[in-house]
C-alpha cells in the first residue's frame, strides 16, 4: 500500500494544481494577516473559508484523480496487490498531499507572523486539523462515488451535488424549517441532522473550541446546550473521525464487488 501511496502522493505533488492550491493558501494567509493584524480575527475568517473550500477541493481532486488514474489502476489490479491497498494507497496519497498544501500554505505565513508566541496557536492548530480532516472525509466520499459510478459525468455531478448539499443546501433547508416550524421544538431534529453533516460538525467543534457562542448558529447552540462545551468538543471530534473511518472502510467494501 505504501508504494502506491508514495506514487499517488508524488504524482499529485508534481501537478500544478497542487501548487496553485498551496499558493492560494499562502496568499490567503498573508493577506488575512496583513489586513487584520489580529490573529484571532484572521482565524475566524479562515474558518469560514476552510469549511467551504477544503471539502470542495477534496471532492474535486478525489473524483478527478480517481477517473484519471483508471488506466494505472487497471494495470495494478492484475498485479499481486490487494485490491483495497490499491485504492487506499491512492486515497491516502491524495488526502495527504492536499492536507500538506493546506498546512504548509497557511502554516508558513502564520509562523512568520509569530503564531507560536500568540495564545491563538491552539485554535490555529485546531483549524488546520479540521481542514485536514475535512479533506480526508471528502476525498473518501469522492472515491466511493467514483467507484459506484463508472460514468465520469454522472460521478462528477453526484460528487458536486454531495458537496453542495453539505456546504449550502443543508443550511438553507434548516433556515426554512426554522421559519416554518418556529413554534415547534426542533432541538432533537437539529442534533440528529448535525450528525449527518461533517461540515456542520467541524464548524461546531471549532466554535466550541474558540468559545464563540455568537457564531454557533442554531444547531451549534443546541449542541452546546445539550452536551456542554467540553463533551461537545469530544463528541464532535469523535463523530468527525467516524466520518473518515466509515467512508474509508466503504472504499474496501465497494471495490471488492466491482468488475474492472
Amino acid at each position, binding site marked *: 500500500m505504501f*508504494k*502506491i501511496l508514495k*506514487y499517488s502522493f508524488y504524482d499529485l505533488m508534481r501537478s500544478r494544481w497542487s501548487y496553485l492550491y498551496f499558493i492560494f493558501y499562502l496568499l490567503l494567509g498573508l493577506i488575512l494577516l496583513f489586513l487584520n493584524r489580529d490573529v484571532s480575527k484572521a482565524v475566524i475568517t479562515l474558518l469560514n473559508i476552510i469549511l467551504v473550500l477544503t471539502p470542495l477541493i477534496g471532492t474535486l481532486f478525489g473524483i478527478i484523480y480517481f477517473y484519471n*488514474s*483508471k*488506466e*494505472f489502476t*487497471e*494495470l*495494478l*489490479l*492484475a*498485479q*499481486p*496487490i*490487494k*485490491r483495497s491497498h490499491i485504492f487506499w494507497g491512492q486515497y491516502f496519497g491524495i488526502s495527504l498531499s492536499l492536507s500538506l498544501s493546506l498546512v504548509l500554505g497557511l502554516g508558513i505565513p502564520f509562523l512568520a507572523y509569530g503564531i507560536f508566541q500568540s495564545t491563538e496557536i491552539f485554535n490555529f492548530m485546531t483549524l488546520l486539523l479540521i481542514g485536514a480532516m475535512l479533506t480526508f472525509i471528502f476525498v473518501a466520499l469522492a472515491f466511493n462515488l467514483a467507484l459506484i459510478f463508472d460514468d465520469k459525468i454522472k460521478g462528477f455531478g453526484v460528487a458536486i451535488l454531495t458537496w453542495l448539499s453539505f456546504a449550502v443546501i443543508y443550511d438553507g433547508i434548516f433556515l426554512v424549517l426554522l421559519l416554518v416550524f418556529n413554534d415547534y421544538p426542533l432541538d432533537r431534529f437539529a442534533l440528529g441532522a448535525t450528525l449527518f453533516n461533517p461540515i456542520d460538525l467541524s464548524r461546531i467543534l471549532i466554535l466550541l473550541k474558540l468559545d464563540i457562542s455568537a457564531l454557533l448558529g442554531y444547531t451549534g447552540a443546541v449542541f452546546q446546550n445539550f452536551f456542554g462545551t467540553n463533551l461537545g468538543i469530544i463528541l464532535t471530534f469523535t463523530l468527525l473521525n467516524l466520518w473518515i473511518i466509515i467512508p474509508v472502510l466503504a472504499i474496501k467494501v465497494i471495490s*471488492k*464487488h*466491482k*468488475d*474492472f
Partner: protein
Amino acid sequence: MISIKKLHKKYGKLEVLKSIDLNFEDSGIHTILGPNGSGKTTLMKAILGMVIPNDGSIEFNNKPILGEWEYRKDIAYLPQIAHFPQNLKVQELLNMLKDIRPGAVREAELISLFQIKPFLNKKLGNLSGGTAQKVNIIIALMFDSPLILMDEPTVGLDPISLIRLKKLILDEKSKGKLILITTHIISFVEEVSDRIVFILDGNIYFNGTIDTLKKQTNQKNLENAIANILEKTNV
C-alpha cells in the same frame, strides 16, 4: 494449475458466461476462441480476480482465488487493450511496475528484442499502436511467471515483431509454462496452439485439439471448421 467450475458471470442482465467448466492442468499453449463479445476477456479477467463471478468457483493450484491476491505473482497478464497513463514515459512506467512488483528479470532482454530502446523516454500517450502493444508485451512478460494470459497479443504488430512474439511464446512453452491466448488470427492458432477452447453463447462449445475439431466438423482446415460452427449456430 487452474480449475474452473460452473463459472457464471453476467453484467446486469447480460449473461456472458453461463456455466463454464474448464481445467488447465499441464503446461502448453491453449487458445481460447469465440466470436466478439463471447466472454474471452471476461474469462481471463475472472482468472485474475478483476471480474467477480456471480456463481461458480475458480481454483489456482487447488486454492480458491476469491478475495486472494498473492497468487497473482504467478501470473503474467497481457490485457487486450493497452490502457496506459498517458503522461508517463515508457521507462517511468516500467520502473514503477518493477518497484511495485519485484522480479522483472527479463526487462532488458525484451526491450532489445522488440527494439523499444529509442522509445523509453517517450510519453506513453504518444506511442504508435504497435509500439504501445510491444510495451504491453514487455510489461506482461518481464515477470517470469508460470502462467501467462495473453488477450489478443498480435494486435497491431508488424510481421517481424509477430515472428519474434511467436518465438517468444514457444520459448516460454518449452520452459514448461502454461499459456492461455485469445486471438482471432486462425493461422496464429494453428501455429502455436496445443489445445483449443471454443466459447459460444456463454458455454464451452468445443474443448480439444485442432485435429479433433477438424474431424468433428468434417473440414480440412481450421478456418472452415470454425466458420462451420458459427454458421450452424446462426441458423
